[in-house]
């Protein structure tokens, strides 16, 4: 309950602590709201600045985004929307009289003339034409609302920048200069930065109309679901998805269509055209996609047409969960398991890692790819190089994990000994039952197809590791061996996905002349040409061999140091490889057969 209407002056500290001020409850104060400037959930504080100058109401006109081009400079800035002299309570004499000293002392000489000016000829002048703020002056410092370009010309500042400068105005007298943009005219007004809240009660100035402070808030489930510039709300929905797959259409485990074309096509989840056959693939630029998206009205009315998405695939009215995978068959004995790991899987991981790395060197660098002709090639090679490198690194990690499984089996005395496995495999699977020779090749489409084939789920690799994981389900084995094996198996799906994404991106260049413009003309070099790189490679192998052996025998410090040295050598190898590839030389990790 507020204190009575009697005049009471609390004298001492406990009296002051207990003193309740009459006024709005706490939650109506700006400082207590979830208010910010972008635009906010409770109050949009930018709306305070529209009326920063008593008697005037501005709109801040800005580009769509701060990196959008300056296409309409004549519109940008703080535009005078209207003059509010009668309605603005802060201009009226009663308000000024009611201020405390010392505010009253300096506001009074400004308020009277300002009100007269706005009611008189200045107001009339400003009512005709299009007026913007040209400059703001406070404490003798004037800031122009126009920026100077390198060529010496000026153009108006983007409204967002003007707003930011207005937000920085301090409490106190302010002078503004207004200029007419559709004609000649200059007006100077002396005023002050409005007191946004009452100093005693904290109540927001009565100049703000009901609803005005909240008129531009986030609208999470309508417009901002579509268009939040900071992506806060839009992060709750997918941008691109795979299209719905009809029942009966063959699918992969994980739900994607077997048909590569259909499986790889990504659709804009908010596309306006909802019928399947007409849905075009999404572009990879938001502004281009917007043209085909549901607009604000449509989304409010037709939101129920947006599809539910499971595993990045739209589903229709009926959802068929993917078939449960058949349980993998464990190996007959730990010897059989160890043999498979040692002789088949570890060498395969190492060989694939090198094939991927070699292919990665064959992709042009972003600098090499830049230039006219293929506007997106620079971005595309960044994408492909990055994801190919991730996949190669993942294979190297698998190589480590396989070795780790083997040395832990040795540690648990389930196998008689452990020697580091860092050898190559002469062949690589291309599908169940088929193999191809290992090969160091550029990332041409055929190569990429081979990479995808080896990583295909339920193909060879993950099937093999699934058997390993199934074997480790028994309590005989340390628990985390099962985890390691499962991780390797699950990674396969990700490699498959990534490689297919790379393929989709590079499809753009099908039929180009000359072909494969994104590739360097790399051929395997001679050992002499690639001597330094091969030395690095040998260093990697040597250090990993020593490191794994140490780890197997419990010498973790020494092992850690060796592995760190291997990592350093790996980085040096990557730099060397780039240098050589730019000169057309591929590292001959193994002799050409």
């Amino acid at each position: 309950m507020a204190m009575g209407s009697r005049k009471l002056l609390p004298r001492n500290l406990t009296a002051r602590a207990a003193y309740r001020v009459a006024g709005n409850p706490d939650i109506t104060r700006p400082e207590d709201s979830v208010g910010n400037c972008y635009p906010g959930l409770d109050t949009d504080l930018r709306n305070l600045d529209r009326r920063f100058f008593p008697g005037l109401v501005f709109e801040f006109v800005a580009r769509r985004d701060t990196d959008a081009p300056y296409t309409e400079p004549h519109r940008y800035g703080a535009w005078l929307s209207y003059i509010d002299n009668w309605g603005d309570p802060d201009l009226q004499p009663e308000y000024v009289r009611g201020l405390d000293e010392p505010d009253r002392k300096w506001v009074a000489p400004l308020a009277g003339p300002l009100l007269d000016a706005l009611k008189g000829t200045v107001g009339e002048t400003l009512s005709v034409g299009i007026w913007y703020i040209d400059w703001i002056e406070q404490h003798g410092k004037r800031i122009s609302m126009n920026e100077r370009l390198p060529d010496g010309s000026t153009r108006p500042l983007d409204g967002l920048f003007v707003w930011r400068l207005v937000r920085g105005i301090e409490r106190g007298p302010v002078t503004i200069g207004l200029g007419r943009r559709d004609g000649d005219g200059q007006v100077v007004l002396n005023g002050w930065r409005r007191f946004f809240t009452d100093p005693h009660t904290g109540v927001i100035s009565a100049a703000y109309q009901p609803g005005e402070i909240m008129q531009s808030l986030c609208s999470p489930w309508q417009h901002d679901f579509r268009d939040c510039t900071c992506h806060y709300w839009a992060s709750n929905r997918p941008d691109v998805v795979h299209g719905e797959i009809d029942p009966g259409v063959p699918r992969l485990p994980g739900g994607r269509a077997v048909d590569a074309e259909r499986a790889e096509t990504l659709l804009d989840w908010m596309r306006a055209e909802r019928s399947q056959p007409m849905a075009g693939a999404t572009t990879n630029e938001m502004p281009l996609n917007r043209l085909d998206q549901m607009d604000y009205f449509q989304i409010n009315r037709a939101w129920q047409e947006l599809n539910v998405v499971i595993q990045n695939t739209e589903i229709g009215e009926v959802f068929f969960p993917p078939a449960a995978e058949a349980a993998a068959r464990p190996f007959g004995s730990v010897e059989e398991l160890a043999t498979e790991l040692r002789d088949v899987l570890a060498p395969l991981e190492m060989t694939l890692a090198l094939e991927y790395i070699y292919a990665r060197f064959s992709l042009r660098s972003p600098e090499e790819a830049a230039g006219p002709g293929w506007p997106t090639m620079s971005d595309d090679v960044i994408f492909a190089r990055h994801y190919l490198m991730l996949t190669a690194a993942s294979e190297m990690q698998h190589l480590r994990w396989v070795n780790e499984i083997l040395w832990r089996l040795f540690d648990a005395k389930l196998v008689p000994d452990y020697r580091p496995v860092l050898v190559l495999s002469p062949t690589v699977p291309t599908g169940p039952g088929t193999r191809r020779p290992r090969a160091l090749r550029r990332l041409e489409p055929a190569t990429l197809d081979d990479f995808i084939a080896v990583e295909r789920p339920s193909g060879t690799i993950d099937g093999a590791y699934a058997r390993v994981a199934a074997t480790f389900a028994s309590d005989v084995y340390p628990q985390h061996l099962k985890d390691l094996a499962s991780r390797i198996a699950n990674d396969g799906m990700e490699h498959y996905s990534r490689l297919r994404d790379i393929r989709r991106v590079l499809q753009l260049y099908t039929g180009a002349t000359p072909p494969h413009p994104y590739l360097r003309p790399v051929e395997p070099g001679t050992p002499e040409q690639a001597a330094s790189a091969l030395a690095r490679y040998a260093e990697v192998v040597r250090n990993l061999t020593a490191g794994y052996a140490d780890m197997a025998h419990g010498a973790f410090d020494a092992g850690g140091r060796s592995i760190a040295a291997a990592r350093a050598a790996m980085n040096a190898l990557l730099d060397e490889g780039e240098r050589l590839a730019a000169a057309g030389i591929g590292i001959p990790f193994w002799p050409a057969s």
Partner: protein
Amino acid sequence: MIGSPADLHRFETDFGPHVLIVDGSRVYAIDPALGHEIDGAASAGREAVRALLSSQGFADTVFMRETELRDPPLRSLSLAVAQKCNLGCQYCYAQGGGFGGPEKAMPWAVAEASVRRLFGQARPGERVNLAFLGGEPLTNRPVVRRATELAVRIAAERGVPVGFAITTNGTLLRPDDAEFFAGHAFAVTVSLDGVGEVHDRLRPFKSGRGSYGTVIERIKPLLERQGAMQVSARVTVTPRNLGLRDTLDRFVELGFESVGFSPMLSSPAGSAQLDEPDLDVLLAEMIACGREFERRVVAGQRYPFANMRSAMQEIHRGTHRPYPCGAGAGYFGVSADGGLFACHRFVDDPAGAMGHVETGVDRDVQRRWLAERAVDRQEPCRSCWARYLCGGGCHHEVIHRGRPACDLIRGWLHYCLQAYVNLQERCPELFTS
């Protein structure tokens, strides 16, 4: 003032009518109309007053929620390092130093146990206090020194800061005491009952000779060394030294950091106690000193009248307490044998026995003590407007003599409230929150 209701107290000032809201010791300036309403409600009874306070919003915040303490932590000990003294003051609660028993000095083992008990459960950052009393503590200087040094060591180890205090008759002070006390930032209190003969009549050596000259001579080095160490003069007021203003002025001149008056209300043999007519004189003298304080402070001068300073600080803070002090709560007096007592006055007094330094505070006894002695349980305190500022009066005095000085307290506080308003208006910088 007569018939003032229990929940508020009206007072007039040069700056208009005011009210003290007893809950929270809140002070407000009010308009005359509300003043009249309050007076009207007061004559109608406690319920009417409560209704009025509620309607004005004063009851929206309740300050005094817990009127009793329970199991408070031990934070402060005074060691009766010497139950003996070289002076023979008539009114002494220690009855010449021995507390009615044979003279003794506190052995080191007891002092050590006391210091360790003091730091017992204190956590880093919490502050503790160690005081040396008696009798005359400087008759057992070695224990004082040693206990201090031990406390300093433990304080550093545990991260628990310790403050030191000593109350002394001043006759045995040596120059190296100044060094020692200054080095450990002691709060030194010297008992001085007046100037020259006034003091000598009340505080003679056991031989009968006056001690004033000796004391003044020996405290000089300490007065000069004040800084972190502060030296206060404590004047025990009896019917024979009621000329407070002269004493105060002289002692301020001498350079004491503060000068305070303690009415003698309960002495063991009843001698030198203040009775009713004396209390009226005392009140008038205290107020006269207070007015001088106001004058000097408004003029920007120093006038360290301790009672007034305390009162201004407490009123400004709105101090409200259910007890007069920490006796038996966080503060205990330790006898030379190691007994824990409610305070230094209760040493060897069964009425205040609360345990032993070896075994700690007897929680059952303490709980009873705290429950019984809370001010809202006392008569006539529970219906007195001054109760949360006063706290009920010194436990030792109340138990042994009763409450003869309630009018004095109320009179003094009434004056202090008025003075507070005056000083807040005239030199607000005195009260930085």
